[in-house]
């Protein structure tokens, strides 16, 4: 990949829908997905039969070896197309980490190439019964034999190591992370469909929570939920005839780890180096610089990612993110504050895997954010997962 994306600003988001986010929905995930998909299609001013592409990433993120059943614990695009009752000519799914970047880029490429005219993109997240990451394994096979017998297992251990590595290297304190959790929950509390609607978090609550895997406490982690979001994408030309202002996709870049590691071993330098490389590709692809972004929605499935995204994107100097957030640098209500979690993120909405970042870009740039509408929202950036895996997407209110 080199230079500007040939399809930059030629594909747009033209509509959306979002289900309520709850711990465990009282209806099957597939039913929520069908209802949400239909609502998104209607929001875009389209009829079901006009949708000819379905794209998603169906990953069930639990490490607990849950039984995966399409329509119940996951919802694939093939399942959704069949159950919405559409004969799609293009159905695809992204596998791997960085689900939103992966499936948005597939959808954009499909529209730009003419493989589909109107693509329904969705993400359905499920919270299985039982402890989310607990695993009863007695034998460790395959790659897990290198880590599970030692007790290194699960995403909390995964994030705790680079988190502590950051604290030690830069002389940071975990207390500085309170500003991240409080900001996410402040904004999430304002969002009607959020799991945390009307439930902000204060710094004392954050600081008094017991640590789970030092330095990680429960409020550093997004809460597992049931929830579905759906978007409709089409070409910039077709978008002109639809009811809502289009939000254009200017470019995207994904991460690609280059070093072989133990399972779930994400050393700090892998994340920072891989993220910096990804950011360089992203600016070239989208044809912008970091300073052009007025809505940088950083990923926050774990709070540490907020610090790391701010640094790899160049929004604050390396090693300074902890001071930056502590000094209200990401307070989206403060004049001059960076609106990095204005959509509430995953910490403020629930584990929707990058949907809050994408949705906030869409709502603000389409000027559909209601009471939360910001004056300045022209170039949005939605970040996903860890910088060295997930990548990011640049959105624009105007083609350029």
């Amino acid at each position, binding site marked *: 990949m080199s230079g500007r994306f040939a399809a930059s600003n030629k594909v747009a988001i033209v509509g959306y829908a979002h289900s309520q986010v709850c711990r465990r929905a009282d209806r099957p995930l597939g039913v929520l997905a069908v209802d949400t998909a239909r609502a998104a299609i209607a929001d875009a001013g389209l009829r079901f039969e006009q949708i000819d592409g379905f794209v998603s990433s169906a990953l069930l993120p639990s490490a607990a070896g849950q039984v995966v059943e399409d329509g119940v614990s996951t919802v694939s695009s093939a399942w959704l197309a069949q159950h919405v009752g559409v004969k799609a000519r293009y159905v695809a799914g992204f596998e791997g980490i960085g689900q939103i970047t992966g499936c948005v880029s597939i959808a954009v490429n499909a529209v730009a190439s003419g493989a589909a005219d109107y693509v329904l993109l969705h993400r359905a997240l499920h919270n299985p019964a039982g*402890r989310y*990451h*607990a*695993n*009863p*394994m*007695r*034998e*460790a*096979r*395959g*790659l*897990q*034999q*290198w*880590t*599970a*017998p*030692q*007790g*290194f*297992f*699960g995403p*909390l*251990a995964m994030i*705790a*190591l*680079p*988190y*502590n*590595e950051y604290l*030690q*290297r830069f002389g940071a304190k975990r207390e500085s992370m309170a500003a991240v959790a409080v900001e996410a929950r402040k904004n999430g509390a304002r969002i009607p469909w959020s799991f945390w609607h009307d439930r902000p978090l204060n710094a004392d609550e954050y600081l008094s929570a*017991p*640590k*789970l*895997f*030092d*330095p*990680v406490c429960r409020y550093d982690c997004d809460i597992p939920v049931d929830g579905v979001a759906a978007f409709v994408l089409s070409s910039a030309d077709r978008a002109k005839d639809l009811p809502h202002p289009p939000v254009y996709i200017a470019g995207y870049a994904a991460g690609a780890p280059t*070093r*072989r*590691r*133990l399972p779930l*071993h994400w*050393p*700090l330098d892998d994340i920072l180096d891989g993220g910096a490389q990804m950011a360089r590709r992203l600016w070239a692809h989208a044809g912008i610089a970091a300073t052009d972004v007025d809505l940088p929605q950083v990923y926050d499935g774990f709070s540490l990612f907020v610090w790391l995204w701010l640094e790899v994107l160049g929004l604050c100097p390396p090693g300074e993110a902890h001071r930056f957030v502590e000094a209200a640098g990401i307070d989206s209500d403060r004049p001059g504050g960076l609106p990095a979690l204005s959509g509430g993120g995953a910490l403020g909405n629930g584990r929707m895997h990058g949907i809050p970042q994408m949705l906030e870009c869409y709502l603000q740039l389409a000027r559909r954010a209601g009471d939360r509408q910001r004056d300045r929202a022209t170039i949005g950036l939605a970040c996903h997962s860890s910088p060295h895996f997930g990548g990011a997407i640049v959105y624009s209110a105007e083609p350029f």
Partner: protein
Amino acid sequence: MSGRPVPVPDESSAPFWSAAAEHVLAVARCARCGQFTMPPDVVCPHCHTTDPRFEFTPVSGRGTVRSWTVVRQALLPGFDDDLPFVLVDVELAEQADLRLIGRLLDGVGADLHVGDAVAVGFEDLAPGVAIPAFELT
């Protein structure tokens, strides 16, 4: 038996676990480029040969702490009695960025810093099954 997950050796790992049972840390080394790899792969991640013929070569077991965490909840069976415990991310002395993660047997009271020197130790889980861990030196 501790109830902890035991490794199931396979083609890629059997010499590692048989060495561990003798309390020897042996790391996969590519026969072509001589670089160590943890864990081994079907292709050498360093020289990319598709015929790495990895040899499990005993190493010193010495290394330095790059990071650590204190585990306060067990997501796997058999660890409840050990809580809380420390996991250390160790760079082995033999090669830059050769990393291994294991329990720190000194316990949660240890005064840890990045760069601290450690040496491999072993936990005997069952007859013929020993798991590499680390101790401060």
